[in-house]
């Protein structure tokens, strides 16, 4: 065989058929080249455009840069596409949706992280609602840096993806070694709120940290008394000088129905809204 199967990392659809047919080694190689040529020159893009990188993606698809000429067409459904281009900030609420769309794409599939927000979260990285990089929950093949990247940068990223596909299909792909500083990092698997597997200390620590500034969650253990609530307000807030009390109001003129409504309490007023 031209390529040992255990060294092969890419999915080869025709491999099993050709392997059982003797004397077809030449045909196998030719078919692999044909499949590789077809796959890398018809990369249909699925634009996961959530913010300003999507504008650059549109510019890439428009006539000046014209991504069609390397065989890439943007389609609005994940079921017809090969490459998911994540262009923009992915929030915590959006991340499960992105993962679901990624799972709906047929194999073989690839992903491009376009822009610094998709790569690392950029300056939204420390915000409570932003995922610090989409590679924390899905695999990424090509990173296109920039804020936002130019359309030619995205074209370059697609070209790099084509080279990667060719190398993988020819069996020449060498997986890069992880850097030592990120080799130990792994995305933690935390069950959702409400799951029976989720440890209650997580909810407790998050609730405490959200309510009291500067206190660590490790001070609260299971069986501890309930968390301190902010003290209930004792009186009405000070009203500015422009607001008069109701008893020293100017005499009512006209529209008695409205003035009756004005004297209602807030609870009654809310009930008839």
């Amino acid at each position, binding site marked *: 065989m031209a390529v040992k199967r255990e060294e092969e990392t890419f999915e080869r659809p025709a491999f099993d058929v050709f392997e059982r047919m003797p004397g077809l080694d030449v045909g196998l190689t030719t078919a692999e080249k044909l499949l590789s040529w077809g796959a890398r020159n018809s990369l249909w893009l699925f634009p996961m455009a959530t913010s300003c990188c999507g504008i650059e993606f549109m510019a890439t698809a428009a006539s000046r840069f014209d991504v069609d000429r390397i065989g890439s067409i943007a389609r609005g459904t994940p079921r017809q596409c090969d490459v998911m281009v994540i262009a923009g900030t992915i929030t915590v609420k959006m991340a499960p949706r992105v993962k679901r769309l990624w799972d709906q794409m047929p194999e073989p599939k690839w992903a491009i992280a376009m822009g610094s927000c998709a790569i690392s979260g950029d300056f939204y990285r420390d915000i409570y609602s932003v995922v610090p990089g989409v590679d924390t929950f899905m695999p990424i093949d090509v990173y296109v840096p920039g804020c936002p990247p130019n359309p030619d940068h995205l074209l370059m990223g697609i070209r790099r993806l084509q080279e990667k596909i060719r190398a993988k299909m020819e069996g020449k792909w060498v997986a890069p070694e992880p850097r030592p500083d990120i080799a130990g990092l792994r995305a933690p698997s935390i069950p959702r*709120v409400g799951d029976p597997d989720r440890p209650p200390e997580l909810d407790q620590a998050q609730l405490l940290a959200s309510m009291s500034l500067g206190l660590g969650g490790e001070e609260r253990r299971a069986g501890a008394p309930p968390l301190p609530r902010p003290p209930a307000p004792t009186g009405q807030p000070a009203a500015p000088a422009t607001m008069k009390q109701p008893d020293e109001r100017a005499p009512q003129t006209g529209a008695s129905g409205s003035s009756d409504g004005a004297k209602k309490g807030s609870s009654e007023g809310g009930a008839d809204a």
Partner: protein
Amino acid sequence: MAHPEDVIALCRRFGIEEIPDEGPVVERRDVLALARALKEELGFLFFVYCAATHYPADEKAGLPDRTLVAYRVRRLPSSNGRPTETFPFQLWVPTGESTPSLAGIWAGADWQEREQFDLVGTVFEGHPDLRRLMMPEDWPGHPLRREYAIETQHYPWR
């Protein structure tokens, strides 16, 4: 900012003598009647926004933990030459209490008040559907409150 006479007359009826640019502060028990009068008598049909700001308790000034809710409504120009008129008003809500919802008067207040409930935690009483709008459904806490720290632990990998 000059206001027309009918707006000034309505404000006098509710005890408001002066209309600053950011809007007069009204009592919570007055706001439903004021809103209904604004819409039905003066023709303020367009709800521009509702925005809430959380203020923590101030020990020196003796102020409790509270929220300032600011509204802005607009009257569109009519064919008889009446110009566009914008009327802001605001109210204080102590933490732990609620304020009447204006979604029954202006339908545009529905999602605006849902957003304020989601981010600041203001409870609008009588709202038809007071659920979270922007944050995930199982998110604990309200992120735009002052006690919500940037160091708050969160787990985005779900």
